[in-house]
């Protein structure tokens, strides 16, 4: 069995970071079941590595990096693109929250999530880290081990692509 203190501490870490880890996995993989598997794997890796991590920030950084890597691995293993699955999880993930009208229009959220799934992997990862995790390009570059210029390029192109697609498909959407 897990030692009592170890279990309490580990559970605290899971509960603190599960939302972030699951959301990252979900937005990168675009599939609810895969996202849960990826998130669980990330936490199990954390469980094995936790002794080497020095602070809460270090844990967050480590979890983000492992989750992104595991999620992109899962994407590459999957033969089909996740567009079809995206619609399924958008409702599950955003349903109750947007239904009360307190946040932004549910249709726009759903469509943006769908469009995000259509972005190339590298752009999608950069966009998710930037807009979900509110990370700076420097932080993203450090996390992904990429040059800052590459990250900025992925962000810029990803954003333009999303905006262009939104401009086209949302016109059709409201017809």
């Amino acid at each position, binding site marked *: *069995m*897990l030692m009592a203190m170890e*279990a309490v501490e*580990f*559970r605290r870490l*899971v*509960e603190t970071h*599960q*939302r*972030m*880890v*699951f*959301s990252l996995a*979900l*937005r990168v993989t675009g599939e*609810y079941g895969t996202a*849960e598997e990826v*998130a*669980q794997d990330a*936490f*199990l890796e954390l*469980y*094995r590595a936790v002794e080497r991590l020095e602070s809460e920030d270090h844990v967050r950084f480590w979890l983000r990096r492992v989750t992104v890597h595991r999620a992109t691995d899962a994407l590459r293993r999957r033969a089909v693109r996740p567009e079809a699955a995206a619609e399924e999880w958008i409702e599950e*993930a*955003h349903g109750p*929250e947007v239904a009360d*009208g*307190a*946040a*932004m*229009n549910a*249709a*726009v*959220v759903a*469509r*943006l*999530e769908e469009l*995000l799934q259509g972005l190339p992997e590298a752009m999608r990862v950069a*966009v*998710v880290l930037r*807009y*979900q995790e*509110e990370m700076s390009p420097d932080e993203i570059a450090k996390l992904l081990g990429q040059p800052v210029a590459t990250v900025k390029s992925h962000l810029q192109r990803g*954003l*333009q692509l*999303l*905006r262009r697609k*939104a*401009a*086209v498909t*949302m*016109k059709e*959407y*409201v017809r």
Partner: protein
Amino acid sequence: MSEQERMDGPELVPELVPDLKLAEFELQLARAMRPVDAPEGFAARVMDKAELTQKVVVIRPRSGLLRMQAWMGGALAAVLALGMYGSEVLHQRRERAEQAAKADQQFAVAMQVTDHALAQTREQLQRAGLKLGE
């Protein structure tokens, strides 16, 4: 326009999205990409798996030992087979050597008998006034 609609702002209406500036679109994207909740019972499932992982870690040395025992068993069987083969080869060699020695002995006896017979024959011939080979 209701209070709620004013709070949401006009940029959130789908038909206006194409006209949004990039900065506004970024804002909209950031709002759309709020973190979502993990599925119900997620933490409990992770804890269960972590416990299983630990059990596997505990079991690993034993399974390693089992693997080693299987390997050692194989090696022992091979050594035994080699030993048996070696002893069979030695046994066969010893038997062949014994047979060869026996054959040498028999040959020596036969030669002695022949020599004796020849000596007797030579003696009889000499007594009769003849020489062997004449």
